[in-house]
């Protein structure tokens, strides 16, 4: 029984949990949440094994169904897949938050499908991260997207359904492009296994269709990751969804696009000669523009959740720019930010959800002076705000430090300067948020005497906020995984 055997169960466990939550929840809706939480904790516990295994002995793979790699589906757990553990732990934080949060938004009998969808989403994201088969990635991406569309539409009336449908249509087109990319790769090489395809690409395959295949796959992943020009669907979807869902969407689901991009980099290793350089410069510029416009749009919003949704677009820009700068430190910065940003965004959305849930207001002007009534929630919000902009000693700073370093190392000092000053100036606008919470007198009575959220909502927020600070100072742990992951990805970038 090697740790490889645990890999399929990392996916099957949450999914079985989803079915059981749905089935048992239909009878006793109260226990749906608890059951879902139990399954997620079990998955997190299970994930510890493979993560320690990869830390000790490096990447390992597992042939599902007993068929060797190119013939059957292969699951591969490399250093980057260790992202599975923090992903599950963040879910373990989000679910208890939604116990009390859903009381106001979802009728009892629809809570079981809600938790089932969360579990399906978690399992699919884990699956996407550990799968090493192109078609398998496509199907996992579908489960992630489908559950995300549903989770967006779950609470609101018409407007949520409309936002979800927009998300669905754009996501559907992206999935079709991905399948087309997979078809191209299949027609060119006849195999679907990532390593095998990469070897066959390296062995030489005619350039034009291979470039189209990579372009198609890249476009599809960038739509799912909501990189700047392809981000249109994100703000409405993430702002309208209930807050725990927004936390999951902005924190983790968006990162699945980035994971896809990284797998594409590893796939394209063989054909790095002709178009990787082109893709890199395109992505660096797209990332830079994403940082600026995302942050600018976030600044001008008055609705808290819209502000956070736009700042997700800006942070995806950080990650993609870090990856595309093709220098070791920049890539480390980009990859670390995949995790750090998830952590920060979960903190922010949970805190925002708690504020909205207890005061009923969504805009900064209405939420003035809420810090006196809800000190813990505002503290989590403040720590999140400081981290999102990337001031030390928070988690957001680590990525900025490394990407700036990588930018200088890659000789593109301009991006480094833009990155540093772009982020810092934006903090002056995030001060608007802090001023509103702390330093302005309360306008509405509901805000002045709002009660602090119950502990089942407060504990996840504070834990996430604490993790934001701890990961800033003790960033060593994630970096011990990210560095090897980046080093064996480096050759993929060619000139």
């Amino acid at each position, binding site marked *: 029984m090697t740790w490889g055997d645990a890999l399929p169960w990392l996916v099957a466990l949450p999914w079985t949990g989803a079915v059981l939550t749905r089935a048992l929840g239909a009878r006793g809706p109260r226990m749906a949440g608890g059951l879902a939480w139990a399954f997620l904790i079990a998955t997190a516990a299970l994930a510890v094994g493979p993560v320690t295994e990869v830390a000790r002995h490096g990447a390992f793979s597992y042939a599902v169904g007993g068929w060797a790699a190119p013939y059957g589906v292969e699951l591969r757990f490399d250093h980057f897949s260790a992202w599975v553990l923090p992903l599950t732990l963040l879910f373990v934080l989000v679910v208890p938050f939604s116990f009390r949060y859903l009381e106001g938004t979802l009728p009892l009998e629809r809570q079981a499908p809600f938790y089932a969808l969360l579990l399906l989403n978690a399992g699919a994201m884990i699956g996407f991260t550990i799968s090493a088969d192109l*078609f398998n990635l496509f*199907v996992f991406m*579908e489960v992630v997207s*489908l559950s995300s*569309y*549903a989770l967006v*539409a779950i609470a609101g*009336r*018409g*407007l949520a*359904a*409309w936002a*979800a*449908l927009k998300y*669905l*249509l754009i996501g*559907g*087109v992206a*999935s*079709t492009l991905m*399948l*087309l990319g*997979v*078809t191209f790769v*299949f*027609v060119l090489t006849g195999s*679907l296994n990532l390593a095998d395809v990469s070897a066959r690409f390296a062995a030489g395959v005619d350039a034009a269709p291979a470039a189209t295949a990579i372009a198609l796959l890249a476009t599809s992943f960038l739509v799912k990751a909501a990189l700047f020009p392809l981000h249109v669907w994100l703000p409405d979807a993430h702002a309208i969804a209930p807050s725990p869902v927004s936390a999951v969407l902005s924190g983790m689901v968006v990162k699945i696009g980035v994971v896809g991009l990284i797998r594409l980099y590893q796939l394209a290793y063989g054909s790095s000669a002709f178009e990787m350089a082109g893709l890199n410069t395109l992505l660096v510029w797209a990332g830079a523009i994403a940082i600026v416009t995302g942050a600018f749009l976030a600044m001008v919003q008055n609705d808290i959740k819209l502000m956070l949704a736009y700042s997700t677009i800006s942070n995806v820009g950080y990650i993609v720019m870090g990856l595309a700068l093709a220098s070791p430190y920049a890539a480390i910065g980009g990859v670390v930010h995949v995790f750090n940003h998830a952590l920060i965004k979960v903190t922010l959305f949970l805190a925002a959800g708690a504020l909205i849930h207890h005061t009923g207001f969504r805009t900064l002007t209405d939420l003035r002076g809420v810090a006196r009534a809800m000190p813990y929630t505002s503290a989590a919000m403040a720590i999140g705000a400081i981290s999102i902009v990337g001031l030390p000693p928070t988690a957001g700073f680590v990525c900025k430090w490394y990407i700036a370093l990588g930018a200088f190392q890659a000789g593109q000092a301009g991006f480094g300067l833009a990155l540093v000053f772009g982020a810092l100036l934006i903090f002056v606008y995030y001060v608007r948020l802090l001023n509103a919470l702390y330093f302005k007198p309360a306008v509405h009575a509901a805000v002045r005497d709002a009660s602090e959220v119950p502990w089942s909502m407060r504990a996840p927020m504070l834990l996430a906020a604490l993790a934001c600070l701890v990961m800033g100072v003790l960033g060593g742990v994630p970096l011990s995984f990210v560095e090897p992951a980046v080093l064996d990805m480096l050759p993929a970038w060619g000139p």
Partner: protein
Amino acid sequence: MLLFGIDLDYLAFGVLFCVGLYMVVAKSNLIKKVLGLNVMQTAVFALLVTSGMIDGADPPVRTEATSAPFANPLPQAMVLTGIVVAVALTAVALALIVQIHADYGTIEVDELKEAP
């Protein structure tokens, strides 16, 4: 079978794909958009299945009646999965459209845009 120097299957795929994409982008009726999405997916499935075909080969079911050159079974399995995914997507899309219609009484994008 070549037409204008391009393989007929590939040309058919291109046309179908563009029709589907156009429907998704330009049509204002939501159901037509979802149909457009289906057309696009069908185009990709068609390309996928035909790519595995060998001229004059039998379907990949090994019985006494069928003989040596068999079509490639892998793309057909992939298409089967793809179709099921397309069904699931369409089901959710239609459910959303029904929800929108219930709340706004319209499924035209232009009218929806003015809605509060």
